[in-house]
């Protein structure tokens, strides 16, 4: 079971540049922490795919074991785990997040 869901997640993060595993959707986040990350990504003008873990219990648990990270949201950029809400916010405030997108050659609309 675990390997199948991990395979799915692996495909997801490798086939899309920026993926946010979150509660709810970008239009209707159902958790304040997921909502904060959405606001930051939208502010930077990053295009991303939101994956709603509330739609699938297996995914909700699978993403935690896949990343070895106990909480949601979780941001992946080019297949690499970046962090959860606190890390994204701190990286945004210091400018590191924008640098990361630049380094990975990901276009930002508002840059």
């Amino acid at each position, binding site marked *: 079971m675990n390997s199948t869901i991990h395979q799915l997640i692996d495909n997801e993060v490798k086939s899309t540049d920026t993926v946010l595993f979150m509660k709810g959707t970008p239009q209707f986040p159902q*958790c304040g922490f997921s909502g904060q990350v959405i606001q930051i990504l939208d502010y930077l003008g990053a295009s991303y795919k939101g994956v709603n873990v509330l739609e699938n219990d297996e995914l909700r648990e699978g993403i935690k074991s896949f990343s070895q*990270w*106990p*909480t949601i949201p979780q941001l992946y950029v080019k297949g690499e785990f*970046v*962090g*959860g809400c*606190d*890390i994204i916010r*701190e990286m945004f405030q210091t400018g590191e997040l924008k640098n990361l997108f630049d380094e990975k050659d990901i276009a930002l609309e508002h840059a």
Partner: protein
Amino acid sequence: MADGRVRQEIIEKLTRAFAPEILDVIDESHLHAGHSGARPEGETHFRVKIVSGNFDELTLVARHRLVNDTLADELSGPVHALAIEAKPAGG
């Protein structure tokens, strides 16, 4: 739970693991009342502010992983959300 038993446990585990210079564990559960992960008895949402020499030279993700690992039991049990501010001691 009313006596902050979960909070006490978090403080003890972090103190043992990191010998922190500064440690502040704040119960923010009241801010999330009615939220899906909140329970009426509280102690579900915490903020941890910790400064420790153990974090020197570590990336943000690595620091957060250490704190998460230390509190793995709490996170898979009563604690729904953990906000972490983990800073190195060496300036």
